[in-house]
């Protein structure tokens, strides 16, 4: 199913994947450094969105439109996770 992609588009895909990977490392740095619990939740949400972006780019690179379903479910789950984190932070977490 993986048809050929032209070298030009392949180069663009590789550049974008590199950008998103750098973004993942920046999000990891924020996750480790904190300093507060909401900062870490922001980093987790950023990670989820970057992963959705990586799935979409990979979907373009391999010409498999089925992967868009995965991206949709990933976005849904990350929203539920953010809501749950916000609920439990507001109901009495410590800094």
């Amino acid at each position: 199913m993986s048809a050929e992609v032209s070298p030009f588009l392949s180069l663009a895909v590789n550049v974008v994947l590199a950008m998103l990977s750098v973004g993942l490392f920046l999000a990891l740095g924020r996750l480790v450094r904190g300093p507060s619990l909401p900062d870490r939740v922001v980093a987790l949400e950023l990670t989820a969105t970057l992963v959705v972006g990586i799935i979409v780019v990979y979907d373009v690179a391999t010409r498999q439109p089925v992967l868009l379903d995965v991206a949709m479910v990933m976005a849904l789950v990350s929203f539920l996770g953010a809501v749950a984190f916000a609920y439990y932070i507001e109901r009495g977490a410590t800094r």
Partner: protein
Amino acid sequence: MREVITAALLLVGGAFMLLAAVGVARMPDVYSRLSAAAKGNTLGLGFLLAAAVVHFGELGVTSHAVLIIAFVMLTTPVSAHLIGRAAYFIGVPLWEGTVRDDLRGRYDPDTHSLASAPAPSDTGRAPATSASDVGLGDR
């Protein structure tokens, strides 16, 4: 021609998502980090999905992409607001260069409801530099 448009949309989307990540890494407090992450990610993901639409040019992919874009545009501001509100409640300090905090003293710490009437002793212009200055006390 279609590949050029796809590559351009991919690069713009990747640049926006990278900028959002840089904003989360470099911004001074949690509220501005939230702002950078929410806006940059929504726009970047929209461009990436537009690239997928142009690349495939099929009805199924287009409907999926429109659904994902609509869903992300609906949920990202909501989750950003919820996280920011939770951070404000547990007293995460604002950036020390903050000049205005309209929420200061307006939240009821017990009922978590927002009062609309302005507090007479508070003009909302004092910079809140520590957690206890946010107006909720230590919780």
